[in-house]
């Protein structure tokens, strides 16, 4: 099966400072991919670059194809069909993505007119169906309400409704629940997975929360300093992480049950993009770094079916991990 999205060697630089340093990703139809990493690792920039949403001073190179058609450098008319149509995006702060002085109906109708050529009563009926779909009670009446009349969780539901207006093949959810309370986060994640199943839609879930990604995605890519360092099916990644950074992220997460243990913190901080170390970007913080790590950056190489790691000591660290597990 040909992939829905395939990204090859995507690179982005802001005013000469590289922030994305060669990202390769593929996404199948209907697949849920999780993207984790710390702030500044390039999780969001990857998709903003692929969709041509970065400001003009950003230098983008490489390739991003949707169903085989190149998106980078595509004419605006073609991108307008893709953005909000075939690929929709929702963000962390839903309130700032809605216009506060227009009713929900007007804002939903705008998306429906643009991507589905619906107007008048047809648009209103579809807007109502979408609000019903995302679980807004009393949809017919609430269509005439303004964004401030909804709670934070409901506004995120409305953003999801708007994203669904163009019947997208791919939904990019960028930290969709980070600003929400725990019980509301659970509601929104459940809604997303139900909709994804029913519409057979692919999803990219960008999050700093490993738990959220693990539970809602088939496959996870871990990003560090503008590169993907490990890619694996989510159950395998969390049970048996190979890259020292992925191991560190999981070790840093306090457990909710079982015995309490001291957290395994990753020392140091993320390198400054303007002064990236030669070689592996994680080497200065890595407990297993060897001399060779400082020489050249490791490539993302397959270690099994569906699994790839960018670490010259992938094999060694794997053994070390097994050693820890045996203790």
């Amino acid at each position, binding site marked *: 099966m040909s992939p829905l999205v395939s990204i090859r060697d995507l690179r982005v630089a802001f005013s000469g400072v590289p922030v994305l340093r060669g990202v390769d990703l593929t996404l199948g139809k209907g697949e849920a991919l999780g993207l984790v990493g710390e702030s500044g690792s390039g999780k969001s920039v990857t998709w903003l670059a692929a969709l041509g949403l970065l400001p003009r001073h950003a230098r983008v190179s490489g390739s991003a194809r949707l169903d085989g058609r190149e998106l980078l450098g595509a004419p605006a008319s073609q991108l307008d069909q893709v953005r909000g149509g075939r690929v929709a995006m929702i963000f962390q702060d839903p309130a700032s993505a809605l216009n506060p002085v227009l009713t929900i109906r007007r804002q939903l109708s705008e998306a429906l007119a643009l991507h589905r050529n619906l107007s008048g009563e047809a648009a209103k009926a579809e807007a109502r169906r979408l609000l019903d779909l995302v679980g807004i009670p009393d949809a017919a009446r609430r269509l005439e309400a303004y964004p401030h009349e909804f709670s934070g969780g409901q506004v995120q539901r409305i953003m999801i409704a708007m994203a669904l207006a163009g019947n997208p093949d791919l939904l990019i959810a960028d930290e969709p629940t980070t600003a929400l*309370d725990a*019980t509301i986060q*659970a509601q929104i994640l459940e809604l997303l997975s139900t909709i994804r199943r029913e519409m057979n839609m692919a999803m990219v879930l960008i999050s700093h929360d490993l738990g959220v990604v693990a*539970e809602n995605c088939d496959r996870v890519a871990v990003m560090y300093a503008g590169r993907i360092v490990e890619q694996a099916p989510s*159950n395998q990644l969390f049970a048996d992480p190979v890259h020292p950074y992925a191991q560190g992220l999981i070790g840093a997460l*306090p457990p909710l049950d079982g015995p309490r243990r001291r*957290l395994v*913190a990753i*020392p140091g901080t993320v390198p400054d993009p303007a002064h990236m170390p030669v070689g592996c970007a994680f080497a200065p913080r890595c407990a297993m770094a060897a001399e060779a790590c400082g020489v050249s950056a490791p490539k993302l190489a397959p270690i099994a079916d569906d699994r790839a790691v960018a670490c010259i000591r992938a094999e060694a660290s794997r053994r070390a991990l097994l050693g820890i597990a045996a203790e």
Partner: protein
Amino acid sequence: MSPPLVEVAAISRSYSMRSGMFGRSTAVHAVDGVSLTIRKGETLGLVGESGSGKSTTGRIVLGLEPPDRGEVRFDGKPMAATGTVAWRAQRARMQMIFQDPLGALDRRLPVATQIREPLDIHGLGTAAEREDRVRELLRAVELTPAHGARYPGALSGGQRQRIVLARALATKPDFLVCDEPVSALDVSIQAQVVNLLCDLQAQLGLTLLFISHDLRVVRQISNVVAVMYLGRIVETGSADDLFARPEHPYTQALVSASPAPGRRSAGRIVLAGDPPNPAARPKGCAFHPRCPRAIARCASEVPTLSAVDGDRQVACHLVTGTQARDAA
């Protein structure tokens, strides 16, 4: 068991809020009859969603805000009136840390100067002693004197939070209120700061009130946990036991909503409805409109926090412990 350092007895605090320009003002009960005991050298974790009153509780405990009713006692004595000499002396023994370190630091002063400020304010030591103390504090939070010469803008988020922590420790306080201290930090940095906080607590015998919405971090650091919902404590107990066997339906939903790697969302309790509005608190048990197990009684009668088992206390009509059963 160590003696209590902070005793909070039935504190309440309400604010008045006006809806619209000409609307009538309504009372918002941010905190309603909260009682807590924090023992010396221990950590009490306060958990809840936004609007549950956990930060207001922290502010009242520190004396930053007076309670409408109830009392806070520190080391056996009631809190002194704000602005008095006794209050100043008491305040030097208690400090706080907030979520946003950049907002808590002055961007135009080198951080070492800011760490020294509490020493200047409380007039502790000579100039040379203060300089020594600043270097000692920087070392305590695992930074170097070179970091002290920098401005907040030149430090990372984790380093800034260490500076805030160093400043809070400057006056050798006994009690620290931490309000979401690691929520703005990335996971790997969060672990560094949590470990540091645990180490410092062990070294200095600090007593902590740790306020957070993150159950994992709270469990990691707390001895006792209290769960708040709409201004009231709905459940309290020892940290390990409470998260392993939550009794209150709200705590159960919170624990179940906390995502875990390696566990698919099957069997998750997903609460219906929106987070509660403190200005329109439901009658009876405030949680009953969202509670999957609510019965008729829950809509009319407010459950009181009562002992269930050991040190566990729960405010729910449906949870009856050994004591309640014995009495019946």
